[in-house]
Every structure is written in structure tokens, then in C-alpha cells.
């Protein structure tokens, strides 16, 4: 008996895995049709790669040690290694489009039923910071969910530059900013009010902060109010950029689109657009992405980028179970073996699934076996 089975991992039986594979194939075709070529980064990277301001949470990373004592991490996110790979392998500042499909490892908290290992697919567009590229990336996220025949979808856009601009005006300590981020992220207006009251903030800054948790809704309403709260050029630019992305998107997609300026930069590398895709009655976001113009410079090459990821393992659980193609099972004798195997090969080339059994092989329990031990029967088959 197996004991000590680790938490946060699971076996995919053939039905489960078929679902994951089919989902992945549909999505890969879509990415490729937009010119996003598939790439793969190594399963582990140096722990040091994630040592920069704003890197993903290092506590949750699964570490291992190689024979020389160097600490490695199992791929804890897809974007950082990809940005590293692109900076190292494509030094010319060209426009590049890449897609991936990979395993992400991150220690899940116990007792929440989350996985420590999951399949993720995504795209990253490098070298272009136009709102048109932002719109393209979001629209591919929408199309990915539509291609899987999911409905009741809803997409939300935010912008990291808006809050960053507001923080510029407030000269807060890092600890204070972190506290505010928590309240904004959880739309916790009561706690935000209580906290701001005890701090000495300029009136217009406090007013904008207090509106942030509620700055979500239709693009028109949100943009209008967000504009009236702008305190500097950075906030204005963010709203202008967001407006352009929305305008572009309206021509590309046809799903409900809203803005939420209360989205905070939880993956700290986002610099511009942040977006999420939801489906009714699915408890977590299905698509999550944004623009990260400064990440690449961590790896020695400044190059803007925008992308998203979707959790294939989670998505697969929302889809109807895959239907497996029924195989044909045949039993041959010494006399008919050559003929049956030749015919089986032809049938497989024509798309059938054929399992051939020798005379003494045990039959599969759940399938009928076609008896081709007789030469005449085999010839007719």
C-alpha cells in the first residue's frame, strides 16, 4: 500500500487526461493561428532568478538542491522564465509572439483543496506596447474560452498605472502601501475608511483612494469617474490607455466587458493593463493576464510585453467529460495473425482504434472481442 502520498497532486486517469489534452490542443491551435509560436523553458530554474523586487512569492516555491548544493526551483510561474528566455535568445529588439503549455509548481496551502501542480497555457507578446496589442491579447483570451464552448463569460479590465500614479501623490511608506493594497484588493471600504481617517493624507488623494474599491462597472461610467479623480499625468495616461484598449476590443469581441480599477498589481511586475476572464458559477478567474514592460530589463534587455495564462487543469474540470473513441478488439490465431495485423494497421491509419489479441491473451472486461481466429472470418474483416 502507498503511504505518505503528497498533498496537492493528483493522478489523471485516462478520461481526465484526455480532457486536458483535448483542451490543450484546441487552445494551442488557436494560439498558433494568431502567430504565437510554442516554446518551452526548463522545468527548473535557479532560485536566484526570482530574486528581484516584485518577484512572485518565494515562500510558495518548491525548491530542490542539485549535487553541487545549488538551490533550484520547480517552475513557479511561466512568465518570468519566458521573459528570461526571450531576453537571452532573442537579443534584437524585435517584436515576438510566443505561446506555451507547461506545468506550474507552487505549494498549495493545506486544507483548501488547491493543487500544487497544474497545467497552464498562455501567450506572451514581446516588443510592442501599443493598445492594439493589448486588445489582441485580451481577445485571444476571450476566443480561447469561446473555442472551448464555455458561455456566460465576463471580462474585466483594470490598469496598474492608475493606482501607481495615485501612490506617487501620497508619499506613503512601503508598509502603508501594502496595507492599502490589501483593502483595495478585497474592496474593503469600511477598513479603508477607518485606516485613511487615522493617516494624514491630502483630501483629493484620500477621495480617490476611497472610490477605488467601487470603481468598477461599464467602461463608460468607470472611465468618466476615473478621469475626474486623476491627480497627475500617470493616472491620466493610464485612463487614456485603457480607453484605447476598450475601443480596440469592441471591434474584436462580443462578450460583456467591464472595467475594475480596484484590480491591484498582485503579480508585482504588471505595469499597465491587467485583465481577468470569468465564467458564471466558476469560483475563480479562468484567464488572468496583463502588461509587464519592466520585467525583461531584469534579464538585461528592456522590452515591453503583454500576455495571459489560463489554468488548463481547472478549465478541464468545467468542461463536459471527454468521450473516448471506442476501440475495436480482435482476437487472431497463429493462422490469421499476419493478415489480421496487416488489416489492423490499415484501419488505424484510417482513424480507427484497434487492439489485437493473441489466442491466449486475456480479454478486456468492458469490450466485446471480435473473433478472427478463423481465416475466412479474418479475410472478410
Amino acid at each position, binding site marked *: 500500500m502507498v503511504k505518505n502520498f503528497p498533498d496537492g497532486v493528483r493522478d489523471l486517469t485516462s478520461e481526465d487526461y484526455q480532457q486536458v489534452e483535448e483542451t490543450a490542443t484546441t487552445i494551442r491551435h488557436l494560439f498558433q493561428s494568431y502567430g504565437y509560436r510554442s516554446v518551452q523553458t526548463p522545468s527548473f530554474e535557479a532560485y536566484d532568478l526570482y530574486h528581484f523586487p516584485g518577484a512572485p512569492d518565494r515562500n510558495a516555491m518548491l525548491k530542490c538542491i542539485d549535487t553541487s548544493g545549488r538551490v533550484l526551483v520547480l517552475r513557479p510561474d511561466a512568465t518570468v522564465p519566458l521573459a528570461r528566455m526571450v531576453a537571452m535568445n532573442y537579443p534584437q529588439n524585435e517584436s515576438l509572439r510566443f505561446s506555451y503549455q507547461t506545468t506550474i509548481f507552487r505549494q498549495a496551502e493545506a486544507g*483548501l*483543496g488547491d493543487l500544487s501542480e497544474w497545467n497552464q497555457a498562455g501567450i506572451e507578446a514581446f516588443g510592442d506596447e501599443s493598445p492594439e496589442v493589448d486588445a489582441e491579447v485580451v481577445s485571444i483570451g476571450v476566443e480561447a474560452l469561446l473555442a472551448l464552448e464555455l458561455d*456566460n463569460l*465576463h471580462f*474585466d479590465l483594470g490598469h496598474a498605472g492608475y493606482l501607481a500614479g495615485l501612490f506617487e501623490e501620497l508619499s506613503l511608506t512601503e508598509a502603508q502601501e501594502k496595507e492599502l493594497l490589501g483593502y483595495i484588493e*478585497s*474592496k*474593503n*471600504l*469600511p*477598513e479603508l475608511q477607518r485606516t485613511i481617517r487615522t493617516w494624514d493624507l491630502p483630501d483629493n488623494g484620500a477621495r480617490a483612494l476611497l472610490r477605488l*474599491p467601487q470603481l*468598477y462597472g461599464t467602461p463608460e461610467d468607470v472611465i468618466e469617474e476615473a478621469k475626474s479623480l486623476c491627480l497627475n499625468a500617470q493616472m491620466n495616461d493610464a485612463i487614456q490607455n485603457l480607453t484605447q484598449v476598450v475601443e480596440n476590443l469592441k471591434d474584436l469581441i462580443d462578450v460583456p466587458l*467591464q472595467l*475594475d480599477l480596484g484590480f491591484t498589481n498582485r503579480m508585482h511586475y504588471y505595469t499597465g493593463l491587467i485583465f481577468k476572464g*470569468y*465564467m*458564471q*458559477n*466558476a*469560483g*475563480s*478567474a479562468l484567464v488572468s493576464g496583463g502588461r509587464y514592460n519592466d520585467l525583461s530589463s531584469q534579464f538585461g534587455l528592456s522590452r515591453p510585453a503583454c500576455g495571459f495564462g489560463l489554468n488548463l487543469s481547472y478549465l478541464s474540470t468545467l468542461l463536459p467529460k471527454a468521450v473516448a473513441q471506442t476501440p475495436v478488439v480482435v482476437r487472431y490465431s497463429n493462422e490469421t495473425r499476419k493478415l489480421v495485423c496487416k488489416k489492423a494497421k490499415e484501419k488505424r491509419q484510417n482513424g480507427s482504434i484497434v487492439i489485437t489479441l493473441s489466442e491466449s491473451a486475456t480479454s478486456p472486461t468492458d469490450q466485446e472481442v471480435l473473433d478472427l481466429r478463423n481465416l475466412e472470418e479474418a479475410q472478410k474483416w
Partner: protein
Amino acid sequence: MVKIALAKGRLAETAIDILQASGYVFPDYSKKSRKLVFEDESKTIGLTFVKSMDVPIYVEKGAADVGIVGKDILMEIEPDVYEMLDLKMGACRICVAGFPETKIRRQQLVIGSKYPNVAKKYFQKQGIKTEILHLNGSVELAPIMGLSDVIVDIVESGKTLKENGLVVLEEMHPISARLIVNKVSLKTKGTIVESLIETLRKETLNRYEDC
């Protein structure tokens, strides 16, 4: 349908009163009923009764869209949800309590609590190393029996403390019931969830005008 998770008790009864007053009728509901799920006549809202400690996970995972739960539990579990309203009900404080002469600004403080995460974070912030004993009830016993130096617990009137010779040594945070919302549901079931929030916001203002 919007599913609301809440714990049985006074909080739930007040919440149901408010919902009934704003036009949602739950024909099957009675305090004594053993049922755990109730729908209103128009099938707009479904109530689900779970243990209070479990409300956050039901909402975070989307098994329920909305939850009503005490701030103490949110501080302990720190779920990834929207915390949108202070319902002001069930007001109390989470406190450090112990014998009057106990000094709490010292290293190796031993704390008994139903809220190990809250206790640990609070003292960590102040650079105090603690040893936390996770207890499940009658926390006041811990200092009396010599199990811990102090306790971290919610205090309403302070009567239980007083009867056991204990006092509040430090108030940590005010506690009251909060309305939490699943991050997807707020967007994908916006109309019903928003109107529910608005109903509860107005009712809270009516009941606690001074706040």
C-alpha cells in the same frame, strides 16, 4: 440564484429578518428546522447554513456567492474574497486577556487561542516571539490552569473574564459581522448581488444611524 452562506445563530436570524423585510420570503425556514438549505419563493436567493469557520472557504471557492461572517474569522482565515460591508451586528472586540499583573511585552509569551493566526501575526508585528496553543473552547481556562500566560479571544461584555479573575490586557481589533462576496460572483451575478448589498447597506444605516 445567489447562494448565501451563513452560520446558524443570532446573526443569521437578523439577516433573514432583513431579507424577509425587503421582500424575500423563505417559506420553509424556521429556527428549529434541521434543513441546511432554503430557497426564497422567487428562487432568487438560497440560504445555506454552515459552521461559521467554514463560511470563508465556501465563498472563496464559489460554492456560495455571498457570506455573512465575523471579522474575527476573516482575520484568522484571510480568505481571498471581497469584504464589502460592515454589518455592525455582533459587535465585540478581539483582545489579549490574562491576570491583571501579567506583562505581555516580553519574549517567549505563551498564548492560548482559538485564533492562532491572529495571535501570531499581532505579536510578530511587535517583534515578540510567542508560543501559540491552538485551543477549541473555554479558552479562559488556559491561564487559570497554568497552560498559557495569556489568551487571545473575542470579548463581548467581559463578564466571563471577570468571573474568572481575568482582565483585558490589550484591545487588538474591533469585531463585527461582515458581508463577503466571491470575486467572480460580484461580476457575473452583478445585478442580484449588488441589490442584495444595497439592501443590507441601507438596513445597516437604519439600524446604526450613529455610525
